[in-house]
């Protein structure tokens, strides 16, 4: 024991000497008082934050501050769950599925409610089911006033669960055959893309609902619209992009109006892409394939060179499409393919892109300059605070 003590003293002394040689001034004043274990809290969700879901099978969404590139917290978002941010900034909602015995037992579908400041679980709202898929941003959606959540279910008939977020209670399920991917429709209910090429609008009226559809405007089998479309709550406008690069906007109301399509490739001064094999062109591709900067109506799209049916290929370039002038105003090359893109909604917009190796890059949306590179940020989709 004496020998051990003398060895320890020697090691400590050596350490002190070595550190004093390496550091001429003390980095910090050592206060020899016992410290307490403390826990941080968070500010309400901010415009400059990116919420980055881990890759497939991951159980958390990391929050990064776009200004510093630093991680500031994590929300427990179980495997294949869907997260939504309360418009009032007070809570986070996570629609998820768990089993009583981990990988088996009784299935439980629920919406977990987390306090935005402490990130502690406040309550769980049981629901009858939900689609287990991951990677889709249009499964779980809140109304603009934050009072109602709509959670898409597929078992394998499709329906939408309506959840009262004030009472924190499941209300009822609405059968929605042949449709999926939800769009808020304030004062009406919600809208949804359908396999027959229409946009369905579900007017929720107490215990009943009325479902109406637009005329067909796209071919769901031949040139599908990406399910991870964008929606501008202020303008009440959805932005759709098809596999071939056709862009449409939809004015959302009780009777939505869908615009005529235009080609993103033609907006860049190139010929429109088509579905023929061996026809090499720029195509949109990835998982979260596009991001809308709502204040400037600029759509940022991940694009790659290839043939048709390459809609999951990662992007080699980001194209900035001005939806007002219908022109591609900037093309930003990327070093290696990325699959997800999102943009902060402030004037000094910053883009985040992630790849399948969980690497993230934060770029200046105007210049394309790389601001931060983050390893192990997460390979799942990215969420930002939406302007209301």
């Amino acid at each position, binding site marked *: 024991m004496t020998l051990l003590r003398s060895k320890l003293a020697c090691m400590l002394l050596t350490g002190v000497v070595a550190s004093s040689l390496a550091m001429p001034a003390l980095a910090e004043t050592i206060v020899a008082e016992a410290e307490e274990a403390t826990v941080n809290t968070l500010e309400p969700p901010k415009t400059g934050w990116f919420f980055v879901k881990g890759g497939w*099978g991951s159980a958390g969404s990391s929050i990064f501050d776009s200004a510093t590139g630093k991680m500031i917290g994590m929300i427990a978002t179980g495997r*294949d769950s869907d997260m939504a941010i309360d418009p009032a900034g007070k809570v986070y909602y996570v629609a998820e*599925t768990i*089993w009583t015995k981990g*990988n*088996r037992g009784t*299935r439980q579908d629920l919406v977990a409610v987390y306090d935005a400041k402490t990130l502690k679980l406040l309550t769980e709202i049981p629901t009858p089911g939900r*689609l*287990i*898929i*991951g*990677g*889709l941003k249009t499964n779980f959606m809140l109304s603009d006033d934050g009072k109602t959540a709509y959670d898409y279910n*597929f*078992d*394998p*008939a*499709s329906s939408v669960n309506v959840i009262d977020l004030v009472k924190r209670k499941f209300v009822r399920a609405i*059968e929605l*055959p*042949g*449709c*999926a*991917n939800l769009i808020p429709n304030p004062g009406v209910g919600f809208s*949804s*893309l*359908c*396999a*027959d*090429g229409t946009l369905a609008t579900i007017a929720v009226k107490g215990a009943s609902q009325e479902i109406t559809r637009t005329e*067909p405007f796209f*071919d*769901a*089998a*031949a040139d*599908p*619209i*990406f*399910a991870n479309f964008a929606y501008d709550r202020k303008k009440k406008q959805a932005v759709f992009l098809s596999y071939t690069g056709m862009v449409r906007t939809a004015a959302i109301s009780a009777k939505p109006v869908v615009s005529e399509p235009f080609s993103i490739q033609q907006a860049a001064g190139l010929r429109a892409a088509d579905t*023929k*094999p*061996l026809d090499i062109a720029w195509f949109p591709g990835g998982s979260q394939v596009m991001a809308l900067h709502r204040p400037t109506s600029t759509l940022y799209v991940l694009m790659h060179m*290839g*043939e*048709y*049916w*390459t*809609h*999951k290929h990662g992007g080699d370039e980001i194209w900035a499409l001005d939806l007002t002038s219908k022109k591609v105003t900037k093309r930003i090359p990327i070093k290696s393919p990325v699959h997800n893109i999102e943009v902060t909604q402030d004037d000094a917009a910053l883009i985040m892109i992630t790849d399948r190796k969980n690497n993230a890059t934060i770029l200046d949306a105007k210049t394309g300059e790389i601001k931060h590179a983050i390893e192990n940020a997460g390979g799942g989709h990215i969420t930002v605070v939406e302007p209301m």
Partner: protein
Amino acid sequence: MKTFNPDAIGEKLLRRFAGRTSRRSIISRLGIALVAAPIFPVLPVSRAEAAKPDRTPEAKTAFARNAQTKDDTKCDYWRYCAIDGSLCTCCGGGVHTCPAGSEPSPVSWVGSCINPEDGKAYMIAYRDCCGKPACGQCGCDNTDRETQVYLPQLNNNVIWCFGTSSMEYHCSTAIMIGAA
């Protein structure tokens, strides 16, 4: 080029499943899906069914031009034109066989893949094997005629472990259904 009819395929598969299962709740949900079938699209592609299939290289997708028939543990095996996930052939199973301890899903998404040996298109059901952790071997993500979740029978992101005792995804098989 002949394009297959997703509605007919979906209905065929669902009817086949409904005919041999005893799970009342799933049948009831499938019943709703079947009732929904007529509301599903009468797509322009359906009208093209009568056209003679074009199997020239110019009409084939990049996958079909490069597909092979010898090794079903590789992503370019011809049946895997729209598969997404781990190949069960790499996980202790086979092209239509689930690995020990896992359970085949009774429903699936489908693909229409061209066999390079005879140049014909066949309908392939990608049935997930469920009830064990993700196999992790031989991950593939092929996307010929793969659509979005509003056309679910052609979407390969959905975990199709419906009606099984566990919805945990293990791997995917590629089962021959017949000529497309």
